[in-house]
């Protein structure tokens, strides 16, 4: 195999792993924001324990 294969594969793997990290961060954040908004829209807040 030529050296180009090893260089290209290294850059592709790195790009994929970093893209995965970024995508995971964005999706996870959106899920939590949506779930939190949903809970709050149903009137469930910290104050509901007292009331």
């Amino acid at each position: 195999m030529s050296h180009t294969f090893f260089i290209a594969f290294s850059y592709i793997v790195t790009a994929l792993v970093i893209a995965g990290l970024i995508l995971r961060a964005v999706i996870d954040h959106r899920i939590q924001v949506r779930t939190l908004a949903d809970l709050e829209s149903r009137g469930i807040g910290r104050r509901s324990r007292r009331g």
Partner: protein
Amino acid sequence: MIRELANPTRFMSLSGTLLPWVGGLAALLVAVGLYLVWFAAPADYQQGETVKIMYLHVPAAWLSLFFYMIMASSALGTLVWRHPLADVSQKAAAPIGAAFTLICLVTGSLWGKPMWGTYWQWDARLTSMLVMLLIYLGILALWRAIEEPNRAARAVSILTLVGAVNVPIVKFSVDWWNTLHQPASVFRIDGPTIHPSMLVPLLIMAVAFTLMGVALHLAGMRTEILRRRVRTLTILEAERLDAQAA
């Protein structure tokens, strides 16, 4: 300053302002770094163009250790000072550290084949780095295994601090043992042995990777704070439904 940041609301506000700047700067430096690597840095006189793998492999290796040190300091924060954000920081750092360790191992292996004639050798540096990945995976598994966040944080903190023994082993393995992996060539008492035409792009890539890691860490911490709020509210909702049923 640290006391102020320990307040999750304050942290959310500050990190929300910082995150786009850190992320933007990271993206800019990655672009500059890649330009220098591909259009300015020379080929190595022995390795030829294969040296381009170094610009990914070395920063990934540094960040693997960097994120482990963040986790170890956060573990101390959890166990000793019970810092409110310490376990949030630990949890957010683990997948990032694991990802950079994986990049380091894969790119190292792909660099090793054309240079050493083998993808893998059980030498001290490679083996200790593999152990580092296994520790990261163990920590990630432990976070998932224990549902209650405070209990999970304490258990993970102990595992993290035990695993920290591996950090100096990774760093000094090339000095303590006779390894196929070369010794340090940047952080040396007598100065770097790399020519500035390669050192400058390498350092720019290292700073870019670090900023990218910091941005991901901040984003991960923010999401973890939200996840804990969701958990608290879900418990409150269950309690309210229980009270209504009774």
